[in-house]
């Protein structure tokens, strides 16, 4: 039956009361739901101020990180988020685990379910993997997409929006530019949706034609191939990571050539507004996407993005698991 799960199945991630059940993609979520994630994350952001840097909210819950694709930052921040919520967390790097022995994905899932797991955090090289898993698990389990193929990386987009909101909360007045390999980037796709749903004034993409998807304008962005035009007067510059493997194929000449035209240097950044934010999902290829001067400069909020990633992931985890509550009104 489940030949190919629909990538934007809206009803799968939201229950009949509009509560977040799974977090699979920005598509299908409205401004109220995204704002709730940002507001909840704001409350979690103060947890590291405590001398005991955790809250007991998800005590007794078991969260399994299923990483079918290598990741350091995303995996560790999901792990820390779960730990700061007092959940028990287990990280499985599947390529090194049972699937090597020929166990199918569904068998792996069924075995983990039998261990009374409450949540799966899934990263997979194939688009739609998290949706597929969400469609297969019993109703008491929530699934979070930690990046699937070229499709989506919704928690990355939300931590980016959280970082922007902390510095520049007036969304309708902002111009945001996304620079780099839009074509292959799940981060860009989720960012574009999130920026538009949350009402950012203008969203631009800046990339060579070969790294732009067809009809990218339909996503609600203005397209620039020349960064000197695209960066003019923007409030936020979101650089994308250039995958080294793409450079080896014919799509892109070389890291150096990319840097010369698209790489963010102090000179190019000067075209943006004086207090423009510089963002990057990490890890940075210094001298390819941006110079070290910019990456470590006063306008860079790249390390704040990492910190905020934990609060945003805590918010998404607790909102999803909170949706399983029976919903009895609170008294007293």
């Amino acid at each position, binding site marked *: 039956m489940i030949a190919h799960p629909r990538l934007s199945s809206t009803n799968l991630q939201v229950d009949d009361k509009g509560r977040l059940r799974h977090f699979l993609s920005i598509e299908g979520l409205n401004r109220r739901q995204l704002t709730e994630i940002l507001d*909840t994350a704001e*409350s979690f952001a103060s947890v590291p101020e*405590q001398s*005991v840097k955790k809250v007991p909210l998800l005590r007794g819950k078991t969260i399994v990180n299923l990483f079918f694709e290598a990741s350091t930052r995303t995996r560790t921040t999901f792990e820390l988020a779960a730990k700061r919520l007092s959940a028990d967390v287990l990280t499985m790097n599947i390529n090194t685990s049972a699937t090597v022995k020929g166990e199918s994905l569904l068998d792996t899932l069924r075995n983990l379910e039998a261990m009374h797991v409450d949540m799966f955090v899934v990263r997979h090289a194939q688009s739609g993997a998290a949706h597929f898993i969400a469609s297969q698990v019993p109703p008491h389990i929530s699934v979070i997409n930690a990046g699937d193929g070229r499709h989506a990386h919704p928690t990355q987009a939300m931590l980016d929006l959280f970082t922007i909101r902390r510095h520049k909360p007036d969304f309708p007045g902002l111009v945001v530019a996304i620079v780099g390999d839009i074509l292959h980037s799940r981060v860009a796709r989720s960012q574009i949706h999130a920026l538009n749903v949350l009402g950012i004034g203008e969203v631009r993409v800046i990339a060579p034609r070969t790294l732009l998807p067809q009809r990218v304008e339909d996503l609600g962005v203005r397209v620039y191939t020349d960064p000197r035009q695209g960066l003019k007067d923007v409030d936020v510059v979101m650089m994308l990571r250039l995958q080294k493997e793409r450079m080896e194929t014919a799509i892109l000449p070389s890291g150096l050539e990319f840097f010369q035209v698209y790489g963010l240097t102090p000179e190019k950044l000067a075209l943006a507004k004086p207090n423009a934010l510089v963002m990057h999902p990490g890890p940075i290829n210094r001298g390819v996407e941006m110079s070290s001067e910019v990456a470590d400069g006063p306008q860079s909020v790249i390390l704040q993005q990492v910190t905020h990633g934990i609060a945003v992931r805590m918010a998404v985890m*607790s909102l999803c698991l909170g949706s399983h509550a029976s*919903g*009895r*009104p*609170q008294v007293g």
Partner: protein
Amino acid sequence: MSAGPPIPSVDTLLTTLATDLQQLLTQRGITDPLLVGIHTGGVWVAERLLTRLSLPGPLGSLDISFYRDDFTRIGMNPEVKPSHLPFALDNRQVILVDDVLHTGRTIRAALNELFDYGRPAGVLLAVLVDRSGRDLPIQADVAGLQLDLGPREHVKLVGPDDLQLVFHQVAPRP
């Protein structure tokens, strides 16, 4: 909706609360306490106590949503606010402030959260209204008013500017 018991003005209750609290502090020789209000009503009361007791501040605020005992029953509180304690509370006397003390569950959660921030020398509990219906062995050190209410009767503080206590009754479940 019945009128409920006669409730004095919040201003009168604040005066009683501030006077009794000052007396207790003097009695115990506490000179530089930290005030911590519980969101949302407790913060409003704490703000006023800070002025009335002429304490230097700053004020701490706790949102106990992440420490509640009913997450699996009611899920996330959609109104959750960040907790903010802009001071180290190790070895300090803390006055925990809330609007209405009822079941005691909020105070249990607040104490747990407080101790995740540090180890205070002592904690006092000051509430505007101490009403009946405790589920836990928790009591206020000072209260502006004692109220004997039934399980379906509730009193709520509304604000933030002109504070008022509102009485309401919950209809029995069918």
